[in-house]
Each structure stands twice: as C-alpha cells, then as structure tokens.
C-alpha cells in the first residue's frame, strides 16, 4: 500500500498582531508551520500504514525551499519520505496551477493507492486543491472525511461530514480523501523520530523533473488573477455604553434590544 499525503507550509499564528492603521494581520515571514489540518492527514496515513506490513507514506508539498521544514515534520510524525516541489516558475500558482504541479509529481512518483490531504489550508482556505488534484489524476475524491477504513476489497469506507449529518460511502481505490479535524487526535512527533527526520534529505523537483512546461505552472499557468487586495472596513464607529452602574446597564440593555428590533432579530429563539 502506497499512501501520499499532500501537505502545506502556512504562516504561523503564534505571533500575529494587527496593524493598528489598516487592521491587517501582520505576520513574521519566518514564522511558518505545517498546516494544522495536514497533521490530521499525516496521522491518518500513519495509522493506516501501521496495520499494513510494507505500506509506505510519502509527504508531498509545493513551496519555497524553506518548506523542507514541513516535510521533516511529516517524517517526524511518521511519514517514510517526502518530496519538495520548488521552483521560481511555481510562484503565484492558484489552485488549478498548484493541482497541476501536484498531479504531475504524483504521476512521476509512480503507482499509489490513496492520497490524503487536509480539507483546507489556514492561509488560502479554499479547500480546492484536493478535489482538483484528484480530478487531474482522474481518480475519485471524497471531501470532509471524519472516518476512514480500509476494506479488503481494494476499497475504502469513508464517513463524510456534511451540513445535516454524515454520509457513509464506499469508494474504490485509488482515491483522494480530504480530512477534517474530527478524524483523529494527531499524536505529537516522538523525539527519536524528530532526530531521525533531521538527517533525512528530500528530492526537490521543478517543472522539468515532473514534465511540465513553465507556462503550465505558477502565475502563467493560473486561470485566476488577483485584481485587488484590500482591508475590510475594520474600524467601526463604535457606540459605547458604560454598564458600571444600574442606570448604565439599563441603557446598555435597551441599546441591544433596539439593535435586535431594528435588525428584525427578535422573532427567533425560545417561546416564553
């Protein structure tokens, strides 16, 4: 059994602060982490592997050279090896161009049975790269998986979280599954594996290695363009009430009721 996990390096959230003028999130560019949902994808791949002698887990990521760090983390969490897709020509890729690169790299890696990915990344929050990559590989995709079981018959059973409940599906392999947080509690990397992962080296592939033209990747290979980036109206004209006295509290309550009334929000909730 060969399992591939798609992972992504995303900006960290430990040291974010807000620009007081624009309200934009300011982040330390060196503060990057493994996308939190990918921890669950890796943990699931490793869990499946442990029940199957000879199974292997390969982590795959596209990103800057520094993204080697998340491949190392994937190996510290139990992946066997990894591969970095990194090249100047990949810069500015949208989800279509990213998926094209990932699909080409997966083909180059050879045969596989299962691809796992986090449902979305915390930076782009599109959730599109998983389904698009599967489509480009011409394999089925199951999104929002919260439980995954291998069947003997070369298929998987997946419980998929949807708006009103969950759907149970049987899907033939190979397939791509995107996972939600509820699927598992990822164990922390062990110190021993962490040390071993530090010694690993990973292949780094550009367009040539995966058989793509530079024009098929990056900004040139992306059907979408960012036309404008702006800060949402952040600073609101806040009306303040001091509720440190009975009278103040009374006025504050009245103000809230007025807002509920003005916005037609008083007709919900418990009947008294």
């Amino acid at each position: 059994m060969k399992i591939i996990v798609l992972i992504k390096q995303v900006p960290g959230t430990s040291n974010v602060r807000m620009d007081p003028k624009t309200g934009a999130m300011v982040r330390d560019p060196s503060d990057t982490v493994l996308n939190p949902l990918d921890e669950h994808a890796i943990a699931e791949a490793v869990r499946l592997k442990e029940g199957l002698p000879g199974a292997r887990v390969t982590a795959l990521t596209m990103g800057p050279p520094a993204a080697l760090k998340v491949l190392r983390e994937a190996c510290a969490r139990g992946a066997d090896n990894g591969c970095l897709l990194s090249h100047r020509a990949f810069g500015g890729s949208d989800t279509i161009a990213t998926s094209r690169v990932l699909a080409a790299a997966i083909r180059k890696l050879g045969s596989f049975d299962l691809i796992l990915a986090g449902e979305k990344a915390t930076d782009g929050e599109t959730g599109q790269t998983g389904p698009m990559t599967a489509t480009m590989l011409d394999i089925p995709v199951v999104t929002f998986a919260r439980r995954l079981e291998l069947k003997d018959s070369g298929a998987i059973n997946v419980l998929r979280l949807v708006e009103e409940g969950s759907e149970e599906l049987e899907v033939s392999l190979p397939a791509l599954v995107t996972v939600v947080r509820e699927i598992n509690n990822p164990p922390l990397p062990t110190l021993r594996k962490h040390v071993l992962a530090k010694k690993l080296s990973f292949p780094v592939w550009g367009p040539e290695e995966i058989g793509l033209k530079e024009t098929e990747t990056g900004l040139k290979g992306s059907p979408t363009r960012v036309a404008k980036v702006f800060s949402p109206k952040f600073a609101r004209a806040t009306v303040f009430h001091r509720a440190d006295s009975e009278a103040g509290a009374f006025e504050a309550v009245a103000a809230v009721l007025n807002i509920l009334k003005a916005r037609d929000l008083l007709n919900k909730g418990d009947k008294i």
Partner: protein
Amino acid sequence: MNNDNSVLVLAETRGRRLHPVNFEMLAWGSKLAGQLEVPLDCAVLGSEVEEADELIKQGADRVFLVSPGSLPGFLATPLASLLVDLIREIKPAIVIAPATTSGRTLLPIAAARLATGLTADCTELSIDPKDNLLLQTRPAIGGNIMATIKTPLTRPQMATVRPRTIRPLTRDESKRGDIIFKQYGLQGKTWPEKLLAFHRDENSDNTLEGADIVVAGGKGMKNKDNFRLLEDLAGVLGAGLGATRVAVEAGWAPFSRQIGLTGKTVAPKLYIGAGVAGKIQHLAGMITSEYIIAINEDKDAPIFKVADLGIIGDAPTMAAKLTAALREFKRGGSAPNADGAI
C-alpha cells in the same frame, strides 16, 4: 439577449426538495445576469425536485433539470460529470454554487476538468463595467484581508459563494421561464463511489455556522457556571453559542463551539461577544459579522476596535440582564426603552 454566456446557478437539493440557499444564489445570479443582460440559468443535477417552478419565481429564466432521478444522493463523480456536460452544452459565462460541502466539492472537480478558474467562498460578486468580467471578492487569511479575483481568459468564470451574503429576491408569482430537461450519458455506467447510508445528526453543531445571531463567550465570563448564562441568552435569542479558545481550553465549552483561526468561522447578522477580549485569532473567525456587540470590563480590549456597539461592564452580569430583559419582552412586557427613546 444572447442565450450563450448566461449566468448559471447550481441548485442545492435535499432529496426531492430545494434548499433555501438556492434563492440567495439566484439573487446573486440575477444581479450579475442583469448587469450582463444575459439569461439567468439554474441547474438541478440528478435529483427529481418537486418545485422546479419555484426557481423561476425566485429569479431563474431557465431551469435545467439534468438527468432527473438518475442518482440516489450526493455522488461527486457523476454529479460533476453532469455539471461539466451541461456547461459544455450551454456555455455559461459564469457558474456559481453555494459554498456548502456539495458546492465546495463539485465546483473544484468541474473547474479542473474545464481547466478554468474557481474562487472559493466569495462574499461579494459584481461585474467589472470595463471588461464585463466577474469580480469575485473573498476574505483571505481569516477575513483580515479581502481579495478580489478575476478569471480573465478561461470560461466559465466559476465561484462558490458563502451562504447568507445576500437576501433572496422577492418571490414573483407572475414570472415565467422555461423548464428544460437534459439527459446526459449516466445510464449503465458504474461510479467509483457508492452511497451506503446517511446518518442525520440530531444534535448537529452546524447550528453555529448557520445562525443569524451568534453569542460567544470568552475569559471574561470567569467560570463555567457563568458561561451557562450564555446558554440562556442564546436560547432566548435563538442564537448559536460560540466560545473563544480560552473558554474551550478551560472546559466551559466543547471544541465544536470554538470560533477563530483554529475553530469555526461565523458571519452572522449579529455577533455578541461576552467577555471576549478579541485576540486576532478569534477576530479571524467572526470579523465578517454584519453587526458586532462587545461586552467587556476592559475598555481597552481589542474587541472594541471591531465592535459597532461596545458595552464596558461585567460580562456575566450583562448576560443575565439581557436574558431577563429579552424574556420580559417576549412575555409581552415592556422592554426598557425598546422603542428607541434612550
């Protein structure tokens, strides 16, 4: 009117029923189709809906019933195949779908097969009058930045759209349109996925993300008993109950209630933060709320920077007072100054 290059809305169904989110999508579609002077199309894939006519009364000019009754439920591969076949035949300029689990699964598959652009989870759509291109605006990095995306060269231009970003149009009983049946080659094919069962979640926590009002509690609620005051407040308001990370870690609320960068994103009509300090990680999960009320003892709490109404005071006390006033109001009693005379 050019029948090619229409605006196509992908309908969301639940068995034989239409989901109300369709009417919001038709409102967006109608706005775009009106600006482009093209028809507004709506597609129902695979299921046999009872009230296709309703889609016309809510704005569609043409409703495509694609291979009705051919699929037992949500099966991504065949549904996406029907969508791609329809797009190839009617060649819409724009395709939109609600950013639900279905829309967020089907549209990426279709966009990849059509090698065209797709923008996720848009909160605003408009047409650029200079080039008639679709302007797709979405929050990025947890709502701290808005990005407007275009798909200049490939067709169709595709977007998933966040529910509750627009009001449905007023239903027009006299509106006429066409219901068109399409059959594409699904018969006899087998699909890689098989639907085994559907488990309805009776105590689903999705009520938080879909709520018109969200009440969220943070550290300023001080303890678990106080936090329960927010359950009462949420109950009387019909609100979804959320929590900050601190409140979740203190065990006052389950993780499924956490709002923020590592939790859920909410965008209700009204957000009430009780004892919420407003760390950036939490703000990322609620900043696109329409109206924000913040209650906090600390007048310098960052939540006040994003609030429309700020109440400086003890959050548990205020929560209890609000609940009592709302109960009084619902009983038909006179709420204090609820007519606006403050």
